[in-house]
């Protein structure tokens, strides 16, 4: 049977969260306009390190989830989720999900006080060295091994936010097959031509790299799984931002685009699709808030909330981005219009941290609906 949820989870946004949202939105509007983001995708620096510095130094949002005693802002995952909503709305090319969420969650679980202050301040960009498609509750990865030379060897494919990372958190097995989580600075990241141009992936190679073990055995397994669950839960907020952009931009477009002597948004065939989308996005907001709340509270319901969030968000956000392309007509299919950036982000995010189907399979176990 499924565990009853905490019915008191606050699904609203607090005043502080709304203020935070306003600050992030203003910064992104000024520093990461869509035309610049699009141009950047074909440049030598697809990741916007200056924007990352601004998020870290000017807004101090890279360490929201980290307690003050470990150099963070002492807020939590709910506030982090609000930042992700805004980053999703802007399709901002910064390693926030990788460093401020996935790596930070792993470091918090491992209570690694050495790296936490550096990652919280944004000084160090860290990446969790797992394939971006890895789902929570997967078997512990064996792609990297600690060999008899005491060094780490292996390759990890398709890792998110690793191109600008200077530190990796690497799950690896030692010679006895004992899991461990290692902080590694000596690695190569080979760029991969990625479907999501605003979150380019990399293949990582560790060719005899020294690693500092930050968790071992069950603790390493738990730290990795918690990080993936929190990542899955919070990714839904980024997806919500993508879906909101798609809905708002498309709604504005069909109001002003005229064909047959009337706005195309006055045709029911268009209106009803956008109404359905609005309903889905409103639902996604509740689901994403619930997931962020479960992460923030360290709730035992987090595995369910995270699986639900990904099973739902992946579906809604892809539809939202696809509707944006379709309802913009010819212009929505051009390179010049930003809709494709969101389509690519939406489709990639639907695979990231587990597809909807994998999360439904996880739910089957978690809420006892097995075959």
């Amino acid at each position: 049977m499924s565990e009853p949820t905490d019915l008191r989870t606050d699904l609203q946004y607090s005043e502080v969260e709304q203020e935070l949202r306003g600050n992030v939105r203003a910064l992104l509007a000024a520093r990461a306009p869509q035309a610049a983001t699009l141009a950047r995708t074909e440049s030598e620096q697809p990741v916007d390190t200056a924007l990352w510095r601004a998020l870290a130094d000017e807004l101090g949002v890279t360490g929201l989830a980290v307690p003050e005693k470990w150099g963070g802002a002492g807020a939590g995952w709910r506030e982090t989720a609000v930042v992700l909503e805004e980053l999703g709305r802007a399709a901002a090319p910064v390693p926030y999900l990788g460093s401020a969420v996935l790596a930070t969650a792993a470091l918090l679980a491992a209570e690694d006080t050495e790296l936490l202050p550096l990652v919280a301040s944004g000084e160090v960009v860290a990446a969790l060295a797992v394939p971006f498609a890895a789902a929570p509750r997967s078997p512990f990865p064996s792609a990297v091994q600690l060999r008899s030379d005491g060094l780490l060897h292996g390759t990890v494919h398709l890792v998110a936010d690793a191109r600008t990372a200077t530190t990796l958190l690497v799950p690896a097995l030692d010679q006895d097959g004992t899991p461990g989580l290692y902080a590694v600075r000596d690695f190569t990241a080979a760029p991969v031509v990625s479907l999501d141009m605003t979150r380019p992936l990399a293949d990582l190679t560790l060719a005899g790299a020294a690693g500092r073990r930050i968790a071992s055995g069950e603790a390493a397994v738990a730290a990795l799984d918690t990080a993936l669950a929190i990542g899955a839960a919070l990714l839904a907020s980024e997806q919500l931002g993508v879906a909101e952009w798609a809905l708002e931009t498309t709604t504005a477009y069909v109001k002003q685009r005229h064909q047959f002597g009337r706005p195309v948004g006055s045709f029911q065939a268009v209106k009803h699709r956008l109404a359905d989308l609005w309903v889905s996005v409103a639902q996604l907001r509740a689901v994403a808030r619930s997931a962020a709340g479960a992460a923030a509270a360290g709730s035992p319901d987090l595995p369910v909330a995270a699986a639900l969030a990904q099973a739902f968000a992946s579906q809604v956000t892809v539809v939202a981005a696809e509707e944006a392309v379709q309802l913009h007509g010819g212009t929505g299919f051009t390179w010049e219009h930003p809709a494709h950036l969101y389509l690519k982000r939406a489709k990639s995010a639907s695979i990231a941290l587990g597809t909807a189907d994998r999360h439904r399979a996880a739910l089957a176990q978690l809420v006892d609906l097995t075959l």
Partner: protein
Amino acid sequence: MSTPEVTESSLRAAVRELLAEHDPVRTPVAEFLGARYDAGLAWIHFPEGLGGRAAPRSLQQAVNDEFAAAGAPTLDPGRHGIGLGMAAPTLLAFGDAEIHRRFLRPLWTGEEVWCQLFSEPGAGSDLAALGTRAVHDGDSWVVDGQKVWTSLAHEAQWAILVTRSDPSVPKHRGMTYFVCDMTAPGVEVRPLRQATGEAEFNEVFLTGVRIPDSRRLGEVGDGWRVAQTTLMNERVAIGGSAVPREGGLIGTVARTWRERPELRTPGLQDSLLRLWVDAEAARLTGERLRQQLAAGQPGPEGSAAKLAFARLNQQISGLELELLGGEGLVYDDWTFRRPSHPSMEGGTPGYRYLRAKGNSIEGGTSEILRNIIAERVLGLPQEIRVDKDVAWKDLPR
């Protein structure tokens, strides 16, 4: 004289005081609810003397929680939902002191049941096209016409009624709104049988029904505006409380799945999991809406919730029959019945499947709800209206 400020703690204290004087379990329901009304602890945002204490609506939840914790009785929303949710706010907003005094208390205590005489055979989604005529005659009005799709007409003492009082002006003008006595001469209620086999609804024929002018709500010709108040309150739940996970129909199907391994197939599992996800998303959305309402910020999510509920209920009830396989081929009873306490989730799987088909039609079709969301929430342009400036009597029908 200034009234002391109403706070959550003062309200909770008032509830406990009332509970101390009236045993919530042993007192007859109407008597207990009457005491609650007289203490101003019914709908607390109503004025003093009318079941409230002019308190912020956001504090209602605390009052409801306090009563619920003591096991105090509440009315069945299937039987009293129209009265509590639709008639009461309209009576309060547009009735005079005499209307308030006569109707609000017995409505709250459940002693009088209300129904809604709005839809007509020729005016469903286009409610403003309605043609039931009201002709002014001395101190009263004479009403002739036919209403349809009327739940509880056979149980109700009173109805809220919208009529056509002036056919010579465009449809949205020329309507007048009344309280109608369902026991008055000329009111004839005939059961309208649904696909389920039962007659949850009725047709109501009004033939020369006399309604005193004192039972008019709002100005003559202003009935559309009054009806908007009614309809806007339709989907605002009275004292809604949090629904647990698997609290709805999905829970019933999930239990069947768990208890009957022999029914399981991979395809059905996939369908069930998809619907479980959708149901949980809808539940959380409802919970978010409830929190917003409690915080005094009603949002347009009400229309969304109704749209989502209809689709979900139809899908889940359809899956339930498939899951049951051969057992899904039978139906419990086609005998003509008239339920006095309609319930959408009760009955058998076959009944639920058929009853759910009404969900996307009653209380605004899903198509009309999409128009409402598109136009009022998203601000998309209205449909081109060909009937806007045409006198009602000249409309094609």
